């Protein structure tokens, strides 16, 4: 079985601080995988190192079986990694449609088709088509960020904290698209603090704690595993 994403003993350091410690994980084609853990566990660091915004200090990173450590971020994106960052980071001065257009590397007709497809996933975006990014609400921005990441027709989608700052209702609206996306053939890595929801929408999960992988398994099992909650929430 060839994994769409595989890391072997991946470590990332900020200066002398180890942010990720010898992390080994994999993602299969078409599955949704959750990365869960409290603040500072290293979820964002892992996501950023996969897309190429952070350099590995050691270990291997394979995308679709090929070593991509030497590939720069913008080329990794073109290889088929979609990225929706923490804090959404939609382009504030671009309209919704423009935000989508700039992320597509297909021809104009295909881009139009993709955009329409996005609008069917999140109809709210169609209504705001001409609005500038910064005028959207947090939830709309999050939808836009997810769609934008899908515009390059990625085979792997990285979602970093899509629920951050969203109301529970909006969180549901965004997160419940994940199984759909995965089913359509795009593997998803979801970094989430919201443990329950993350486990609800994914197939498997990795639990991180201060840069180290502490638990992994099928999401359904982890949901009922009491040690997950303990690791995650401490004493609650």
């Amino acid at each position, binding site marked *: 079985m060839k994994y769409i994403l595989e890391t072997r003993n991946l470590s990332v350091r900020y200066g002398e601080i180890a942010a990720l410690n010898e992390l080994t994980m994999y993602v299969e084609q078409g599955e949704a995988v959750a990365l869960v853990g409290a603040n500072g566990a290293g979820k964002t660091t892992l996501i950023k190192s996969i897309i*190429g915004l952070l350099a590995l200090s050691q270990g291997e990173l394979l995308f679709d079986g090929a070593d991509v450590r030497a590939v720069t971020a*913008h080329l990794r*994106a073109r290889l088929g990694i979609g990225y929706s*960052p923490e804090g959404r980071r939609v382009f504030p001065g*671009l309209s919704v449609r423009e935000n989508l257009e700039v*992320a597509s*590397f297909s021809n104009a007709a295909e881009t139009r088709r993709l955009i329409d497809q996005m609008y069917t996933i999140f109809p709210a975006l169609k209504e705001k088509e001409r609005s500038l990014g910064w005028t959207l609400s947090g939830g709309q921005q999050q939808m836009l960020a997810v769609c*934008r990441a899908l515009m390059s027709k990625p085979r792997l989608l990285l979602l970093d904290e899509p629920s951050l700052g969203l109301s529970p209702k909006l969180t549901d609206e965004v997160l419940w698209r994940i199984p759909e996306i995965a089913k359509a053939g795009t593997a998803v890595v979801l970094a989430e603090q919201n443990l329950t929801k993350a486990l609800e929408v994914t197939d498997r999960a990795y639990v991180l704690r201060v840069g180290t992988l502490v638990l992994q398994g099928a999401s359904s099992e982890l949901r009922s595993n009491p040690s997950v909650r303990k690791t995650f929430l401490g004493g609650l």
Partner: protein
Amino acid sequence: MIQLLFNTLSLAAAYSLLAIGFVLVLNATGAVNLAHGSFVVVGGFLAAGLGSWLKLPGAVVLPIVLAGMMIIGGLLSLIAYYPLRNRPAVSVFISTLSMSAILETATLLIFGPSPRVGPPILSSGAIQVGDVALNVQSLSTVLLAVVLVAAQYVIFSRTVLGKRLRAVAEDREMARALGMNVNAMIVITFGIAAALAGAAGLMFANTFYITPGDGEAYMIKTYVAATMGGWGSLRGAIVGALFVAAFEVLVPSLPLAMPSLVGALPSLEALFSPIASTIWLYLAFLVVLFFRPQGLFGEAVQQRA
């Protein structure tokens, strides 16, 4: 007076091209390009050289100037910006200043120290409208500036390349993570900025001539216009350009608008000399900043908190 208003508009049109280019680079890189004034000089000499060699009007020479300036702007970004992109912003300040000395000295060596006259955009002469003679050059300057600003607008709002350039300007890291080649985009942005400045050089070279040492004055005016309008705001850049042009033309001509006042107090005349007007410009700038520390239009991108 109508004539003067018209001249102001024409001057502001050319300055806007400068200020817009300056702001484009600023937004894309976060760096101040102090060689921007030298782009005017190089563009002006290019236009003057081509114009006298080919004996063609500016509008025909323009595409060559634009292309040449794009290359020069792109090269400049590779030398003066790219190696320093992760360094303190003030390094780019100095490197672009050094580049401006290099560009202007090279111009001096190639073209000599004499002022040169550029070709008129369409033709010289004037059109009589009522009792006002409208200079064809001024008219075509406004026209050309409007065309170029519109072209710039179309590129940035209608083409995918332009939209990506804007995306890079707004969030470089995110643009990179979405598959855009940020470095190439920055080179292109410098190229477009240089091309716009070169076009302004073509306009100035006919009306005001061009000498190798002109860069600094254009640079300072651009800097004032861009800052006054609001750091990073394109709309602000145009308004800033209008402001600077008004202080250059309208303020010194105020005595004509109110002759009685100045007639009564002859000493007032000195307050409207061109030199005094420049002083007023800086004082007005301080006043604007006192009340609006972020310039007239504020920062370009508003963030939702």
